[in-house]
């Protein structure tokens, strides 16, 4: 793999990496035909971010000869390469990323003014593809705003605020800090902002709804969007469904997918709806053992089908479910890739104790008994 970014795009690349560092500890690098994907996910799997840079973003883009190459590395090491944004802007003329697969090293070379050359050889680990499947188009509510609006709005909330609540009606948007139910609400400081639909570039709300998500992770995207001056689009449905924040231009696309609190954390709510059950994911990512009262994204990263995986063509059955959806239905399969490539699904909301890998289970949510090899099962209430 060999790609070269020049001029202002070096700073964009750096900002993307700094943004991703707000999400997770590791940077996943996945060169694909239609560009380079930089991704990260947080430890509780409730936030996922992906920057897709098209070949046009680069002055030169050469995908790796091995199509299935993916790697991950501690994001701090990559951040160190792009440490000072101001000096990047001032002195870096070109940034070259090359893969040295024999030595398992990723080489990032910065060509700077005055002939100075900075070469960083970073070690990486091979890894699974990190991919969340989500479908913006199927979301019923869409907002689009200039980054300045979002930045100015979140400015009113303290940096320590974890969760923020976004409520929409037909002509207004409210942002409030989210206070835990068990906290003494008479003592907590409540902040509420109301924005009219006119403040938004695009305002398409199909139904009144209120979602709560993590603000800290959103800030990562805001920083990027503000510096690139690109509008931010928000796609969401009802509570429990993920909110997808998207920033796009002709050569790059950034998607931040954040889980939202479901209004009823009891899973019975989800039993009724055709919701997600986690497909098996690789053993180390045993999200099943996490405490999952909604607010979790179950990620599936299925490599080549192993013994615990049933090779499925998930897109199809999930799409069926989509159509037969009940209110909470949300996760969609974005069948952009052929099934034999890594397919990952992103499930939001409470994870049912019916982990199964087969299509049949997907279709019949009422079946609670698991026939999968997943070790843990969350309890249904």
């Amino acid at each position: 793999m060999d790609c070269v970014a020049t001029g202002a795009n070096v700073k964009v690349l750096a900002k993307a990496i700094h943004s991703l560092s707000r999400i997770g500890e590791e940077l996943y690098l996945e060169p694909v035909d239609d560009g380079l994907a930089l991704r990260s996910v947080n430890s509780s799997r409730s936030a996922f971010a992906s920057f897709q840079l098209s070949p046009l973003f680069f002055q030169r883009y050469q995908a790796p000869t091995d199509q299935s190459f993916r790697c991950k590395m501690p994001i701090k090491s990559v951040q160190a390469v792009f440490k000072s944004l101001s000096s990047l802007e001032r002195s870096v003329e070109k940034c070259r990323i090359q893969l040295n697969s024999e030595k398992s090293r990723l080489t990032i070379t910065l060509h700077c003014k005055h002939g100075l050359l900075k070469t960083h050889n970073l070690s990486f680990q091979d890894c699974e593809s990190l991919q969340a499947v989500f479908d913006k188009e199927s979301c019923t509510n869409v907002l689009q705003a200039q980054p300045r609006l979002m930045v100015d709005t979140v400015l009113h909330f303290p940096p320590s605020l974890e969760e923020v609540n976004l409520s929409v009606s037909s002509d207004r948007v409210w942002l409030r800090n989210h206070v835990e139910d068990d906290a003494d609400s008479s003592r907590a400081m409540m902040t509420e902002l109301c924005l009219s639909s006119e403040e938004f570039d695009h305002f398409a709300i199909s139904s009144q709804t209120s979602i709560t998500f993590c603000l800290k992770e959103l800030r990562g995207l805001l920083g990027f969007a503000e510096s690139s001056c690109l509008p931010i689009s928000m796609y969401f449905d009802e509570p429990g469904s993920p909110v997808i924040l998207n920033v796009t231009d002709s050569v790059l696309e950034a998607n931040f997918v954040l889980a939202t609190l479901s209004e009823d954390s009891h899973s019975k709510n989800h039993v009724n709806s055709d919701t997600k059950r986690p497909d098996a994911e690789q053993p180390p990512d045993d999200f099943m053992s996490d405490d999952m009262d909604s607010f979790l994204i179950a990620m599936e990263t299925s490599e080549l089908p192993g013994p615990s995986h049933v090779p499925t063509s998930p897109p199809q059955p999930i799409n069926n479910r989509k159509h037969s959806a009940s209110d909470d239905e949300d996760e969609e399969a974005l069948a952009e890739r052929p099934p034999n490539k890594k397919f990952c699904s992103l499930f939001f909301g409470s994870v049912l104790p019916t982990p199964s890998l087969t299509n049949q289970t997907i279709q019949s949510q009422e079946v609670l008994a698991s026939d999968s090899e997943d070790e843990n099962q969350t309890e249904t209430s």
Partner: protein
Amino acid sequence: MPLSTQSQSDVDQYILIASLDNARNLSNILKAISFKDHAIFNATQNGLKVTVEDSKCLQANAFIQADIFQEYIIKEDAVGFQVNLTVLLDCLTIFGGSTVPGVCTALRMCYNGYGYPLTLFLEEGGVVTVCKINTQEPEEPIDFDFCSTNVTNKVILQSDSLKEAFSELDMTSEVLQITMSPSHPYFRLSTFGNSGNAHYDYPKDSDMMELFQCTKIQTNRYKMSLLKPSTKALALSCKVSVRTDSRGFLSLQYLVRNDDGQICFVEYYCCPDEEVEEE
């Protein structure tokens, strides 16, 4: 002015008197070598030399020439003593180190000789402070025996580009490796840290490179912890000369301009960490 409060007999007792209208012209340069508590002062007709050492492997010297001082009187060929540098700096900045233009601390530094404390008269805005700092027997500074005839490689760089490199150095690396060569990579700083290695290459024809005299390829490693204090001197300087000799000893010489635009020098000597096979 403190001078007026002293009697003539007091003045006669001093073997060294050095005065500055702006104490920062001394304190700033001393901060560039203040990585240890104790400093050896050696004053001669030429001026003041202050030395700080670390573990017999690193030595830093600050040179403040006689003509930097508004008053410089020395009654012996050489006057030497050792003081606690941290305490001295605290005294020099006792008025808080305000950076308001036009307001500065005036200094008169006096020394009676062996066994006497170092006396500082500091004045700012009409307020006078007198500090007496105990002195110790000066240790003999290490002679690194670094002479120009043994120098194999020498470069002079503008500090700005090195400042950037030093600020980005991977601190998880135990060593800083310096490669100097008449051919590629010419001048290279390398680190070997937890996430991988990094190299900073300065080509010989870079416009940041003022002088490039490398006779043969040399690669030496120095403990990062020893060189880290030199970044203070780098930050103050506008030019730096990097020299290595046949033993791999490193000499860094920094050209520092003080508040009044006068030139002072700071130099660092460092022993190499280990034998490295020459490439």
